[in-house]
């Protein structure tokens, strides 16, 4: 028998990000024949599509003098031309034309990163390409499923990506940050259950026989016109390493069996969140709100997107202020509460990924 070594997670205020993972570089509609620039996991990328419509991610720096390729133009079937001296690379990042000489320097390449397009997102892999298995893309199927309708946006959040994960893993903040829409005191009062495995963490919370907050009352009335009365409300938060969080949310008429699995007397949404580290202190926060009722209504899609936009704007403001306070108080540490259990498991799973990559560096 060997003793089980038990270590507590550290609480790095600025957590590093694993590289052997798929991160969303953009919505599918953002990546076009016109190259765009986006920094993912500290790496500036030039994103574009080939003539055949395949998304490409190259390092956004020409091999020659590091001019940004994203300022250039697509050329030929799958190429991109550096805007400075006209050097052309193909989608594999190999130089195919070096205008000022008769041959091509065999070393002239720019890194080309594995890309997978799935669930309306373009995913990139910046780590070891031999490990870039498309099966490792986090499950966000609701975003592109015919059984769900909805839309989302991107928030450029001025904070370490981990702060967003913390935010989503503990929704007791809704009572205070989102008091006018989804917040209510039962959130803090109700019990929650945390489970985890090697790559996921789940936090479940049920609130029984409560009044629906304004956001949910509106949704109930979209499905059940004129609805009045108490509801059972749920939030089932599922984290998939390293930075995707899908939240199964909804309310159903109180006592109609939703906790036991019959949600027919309620409305169900999925808040889809995937956070892409940009720098150590900023991230791209891709979210979508999907619903499985009134699929035909573009009005509801737009209303929900605008509603969540407002709610997440409140988070964005808090996260930015929190990051600023962290940076302004370098000699103060984080302390943890019972409500942080989900977020702490998230940290531990991420730290294990970093450790496996030999990149777990304790930071101040």
């Amino acid at each position, binding site marked *: 028998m060997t003793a089980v070594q038990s270590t507590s997670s550290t609480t790095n205020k600025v957590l590093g990000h694993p590289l052997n993972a798929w991160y969303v570089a953009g919505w599918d509609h953002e990546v076009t024949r016109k190259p765009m620039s986006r920094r993912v996991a500290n790496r500036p990328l030039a994103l574009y599509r080939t003539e055949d419509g395949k998304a490409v991610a190259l390092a956004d720096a020409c091999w020659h003098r590091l001019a940004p390729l994203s300022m250039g133009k697509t050329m030929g079937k799958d190429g991109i031309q550096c805007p400075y001296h006209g050097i052309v690379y193909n989608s594999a990042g190999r130089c195919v034309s070096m205008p000022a000489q*008769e041959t091509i320097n*065999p070393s002239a390449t720019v890194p080309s990163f594995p890309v997978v397009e799935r669930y309306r997102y373009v995913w990139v892999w910046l780590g070891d390409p031999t490990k870039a298995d498309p099966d490792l893309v986090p499950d966000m199927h609701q975003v592109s499923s015919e059984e769900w309708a909805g839309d989302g946006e991107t928030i450029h959040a001025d904070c370490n990506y981990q702060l967003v994960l913390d935010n989503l893993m503990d929704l007791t903040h809704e009572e205070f940050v989102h008091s006018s829409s989804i917040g209510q005191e039962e959130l803090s009062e109700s019990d929650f259950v945390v489970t985890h495995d090697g790559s996921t963490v789940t936090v479940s919370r049920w609130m029984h026989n409560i009044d629906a907050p304004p956001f949910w009352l509106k949704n109930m009335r979209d499905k059940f016109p004129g609805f009045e009365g108490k509801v059972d409300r749920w939030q089932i938060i599922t984290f998939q390493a390293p930075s995707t969080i899908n939240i199964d949310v909804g309310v159903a008429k109180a006592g109609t069996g939703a906790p036991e699995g019959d949600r027919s007397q309620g409305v169900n949404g999925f808040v889809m969140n995937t956070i892409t580290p940009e720098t150590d202190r900023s991230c791209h926060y891709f979210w979508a709100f999907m619903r499985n009722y009134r699929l035909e209504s573009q009005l509801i899609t737009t209303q929900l997107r605008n509603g969540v936009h407002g709610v997440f704007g409140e988070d964005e403001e808090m996260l930015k202020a929190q990051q600023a306070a962290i940076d302004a108080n370098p000699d103060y540490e984080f302390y943890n509460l019972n409500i942080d259990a989900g977020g702490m498991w998230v940290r531990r799973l991420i730290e294990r990924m970093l450790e496996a990559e030999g990149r777990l560096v304790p930071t101040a």
Partner: protein
Amino acid sequence: MAATNVEVWQQATVVEARAIATDIQRIVLEPALPRQAEPGSHVDLKVMIDGEQDKRSYSVVESSEDGKRLVISVMKAPQSRGGSLFMHTLKPGDTLEITRPLQNFPLRVGAGRYILLAGGIGITAMVNMGRVLKNLKANYTFVYAGRNRAAMAYLPELQELHGENLVVHVDDEGTSLKVDELVASADLDTELYMCGPIRLMDVVRRAWTERELNLPNLRYETFGNSGWYDPEEFIVRIPRLGVETKVGQGRSMLETLEDAGVDMMFDCRKGECGLCEVRILELDGAVDHRDVFYSERQQHAAAKMCCCVSRAVTSKTGAKADADPHRGPAVVTIEVS
């Protein structure tokens, strides 16, 4: 994969050194700053030659996942000035300065089919690629050509790992590589990675071009250390600077001019970038172009040469059979930038 060329120097300790083929030494290094070496990467290391420090590049044959063990293999070059001789004197416990793995020859993951082609000691650049392709269950053929089996490093290990994916060609056994047949087996989705003598790589490049395959899919690495002729001693003159000096067999023209105090411009020192270009004013002999910077047309014109790798030889006609060092030496008169 990044073309990582930021040189980070570190100490490394030799933990193993043994002969694995005729004149080929396998050297296992433990670097102070471990980092896993990607397929296609190499390390630069500092060697001592006649009490002077110099730099050499060697492909990383294998590396442990944590990068704490790096394996290189060094062939004792017949015309070596002493770099490979120095490497052959290393024994366990010795330390030397090496870079972290550098990458000029990245393997792309995701091609429809791969051909790896190693000629002689060029095998050192291909071993790691072969292992990765095998692990990825990629569609690949590993072609290994050599003079005789005793001179072919890693042959048994490669046969065991790659089985039928490994195709061996041995000159002394009458099974020499037929480049045309090999290239004929490639299609537009095939990537061919090769490392070997420049003569072999040139024949492959021609066949590849003739068959109108995708040129960017032909990947090769050259350390600029082989040519069309055997290296000869030759004279280089720069009239404007009043310089005349003799380039020894085991020394490059660039190094010799630097030794003579000429302020030379250069970068890659392996015949790729073209920065060390000199203009040829007069030539008694022929030029052995060993670079990949000039097109065939430019090489035939013999108006310029890359002095880091290319040499003057005695052949009047340019034919190898006409080279006659006893009539020599060849003389090249140049102008520099």
